[in-house]
């Protein structure tokens, strides 16, 4: 039988008694999770900006918005028959319009002036040889063809952004894993101190017949609260990162490359959910280890 009020009171008192240590733990967990969340947001933003250029796509053949079926078939034939083309993917007008909407969801004034009929379909092309000269020569074969509006190339900048993203992401990922391990140990140590401070109470509880769960749950809850507060710090950091850093990139005049460098609401929700799950995981592991190591049966 549990007294909910008792558990809450004991948890609150534990946190209050070790306030400075608890604050240090919350900050460490928060910074670790913020780094992890930042890494994920950065990846999502880069993915968003370079989505069209993934899977080896080196150039895109943009069709006119009012392209006819005969002209379209001509381009398909050329793609199929070209020995330099390894693979290609057609993005029809509807899918292209969805991409466009996702791209400019935060800019309603742009969305308002464009209709589905104005958005062109396109072909994403994967060449056999990714050498820039070969790709350019291959892409040029489509320029000026009936129905073709323009041809755009991935170019070195896109590839550099992707490479930079991969490397920075790895560093951030490894750093956040190390910090998350440190957070787990810090929660463990904070609870070990709390358990040490309450050694007499624990001994009395054991001897009067308190169950193992009754003794352990306030400590586990204390660890969980620290983890959740850390998650709140990280989520706040994520929101600031998205609104004041990532969105600034996408709004920057002249940085067309970064026009799609953004994180949509769904991605933000996923990242925050993952941060929350990891915070709970870190808290549960840290507090379980603490009570298992420091409270005798």
């Amino acid at each position, binding site marked *: 039988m549990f007294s909910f009020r008792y558990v809450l009171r004991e948890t609150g008192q534990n946190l209050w008694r070790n306030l400075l240590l608890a604050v240090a733990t919350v900050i460490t967990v928060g910074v670790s999770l913020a780094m992890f969340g930042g890494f994920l947001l950065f990846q999502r933003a880069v993915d968003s900006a370079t989505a069209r250029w993934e899977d080896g796509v080196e150039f895109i053949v943009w069709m006119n918005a009012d392209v006819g079926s005969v002209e379209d078939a001509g381009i398909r034939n050329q793609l199929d028959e070209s020995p330099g083309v390894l693979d290609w993917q057609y993005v029809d007008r509807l899918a292209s319009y969805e991409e466009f909407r996702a791209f400019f969801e935060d800019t309603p004034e742009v969305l308002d002036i464009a209709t589905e009929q104005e958005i062109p379909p396109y072909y994403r092309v994967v060449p056999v040889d990714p050498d820039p000269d070969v790709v350019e020569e291959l892409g040029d074969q489509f320029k000026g063809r009936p129905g073709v509006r323009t041809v755009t190339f991935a170019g070195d900048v896109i590839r550099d952004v992707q490479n930079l993203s991969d490397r920075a992401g790895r560093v951030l990922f490894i750093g956040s894993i190390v910090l998350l391990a440190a957070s787990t140990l810090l929660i463990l140590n904070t609870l070990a101190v709390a358990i040490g401070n309450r050694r*007499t109470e624990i001994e*009395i509880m054991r*001897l009067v*017949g*308190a*169950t193992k769960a009754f003794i352990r749950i306030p400590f586990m809850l204390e660890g969980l609260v620290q983890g959740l507060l850390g998650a709140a710090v990280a989520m706040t950091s994520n929101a600031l990162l998205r609104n004041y850093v990532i969105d600034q990139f996408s709004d920057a005049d002249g940085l067309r490359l970064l026009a799609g460098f953004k994180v949509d609401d769904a991605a933000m929700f996923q990242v925050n959910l993952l941060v929350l799950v990891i915070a709970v995981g870190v808290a549960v592991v840290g507090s379980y280890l603490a009570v298992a190591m420091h409270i005798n*049966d």
Partner: protein
Amino acid sequence: MIKMEKVTKVFKGDVVALRDVTIDIGKGEFVFLVGPSGSGKSTFIRLLNREEVPEHGRIFVAGRDIGGLSSWRVPYLRRNIGYVFQDYKLLQKKTVAENVAFALEAIGKGPHVIKRQVPAILELVGLSRKVDRFPYELSGGEQQRVSIARAFVNRPMILLADEPTGNLDPTTSVGIMRLLERINETGTTVLMATHDSSIVDSMRQRVVELDRGMVVRDQARGVYE
């Protein structure tokens, strides 16, 4: 109420704390456990509430073999056994009433039970006027009475006391013994480990003497030596 059959307890390094102990203590008895330091008195008590488990032999409490209890049932065994410490082990940041209530809270008793039982037990131990005092505001004898109240508030069948007068002067010790006698008169079995010969001699209760882990004397209405 308490029965040991050929119980042997060995600690690390082959230190034999109890050797082949067989004893039977009936319901409502008052028993002194005497013997020199290291004779096994504390181990004897710790075995009864399953803080230790014996290497050999069987221990029965209220007819139940506690050696076979699973770990999750041990707390329920302990709810039937009160424990009084030599050094009181009171929580310094809790008042007298809160210290006693803590024993009930820890086993999940609700506020209505606590409100009814805590004042009653504090009345029994003579501390009803000091319910809001903190332990550091009490004398040693008063602190030990709080400790006894905490051990008895759940009305256990057995009360174990490990040197409860060890830190008290003789006069105060007499008061504590009177209190334990009153508790014993309610039908609770009291087992008390002690070095205090004058108390044992004056009470003339059953005396079990241990020496190097063995029962060397079991005497009804006995004396210390």
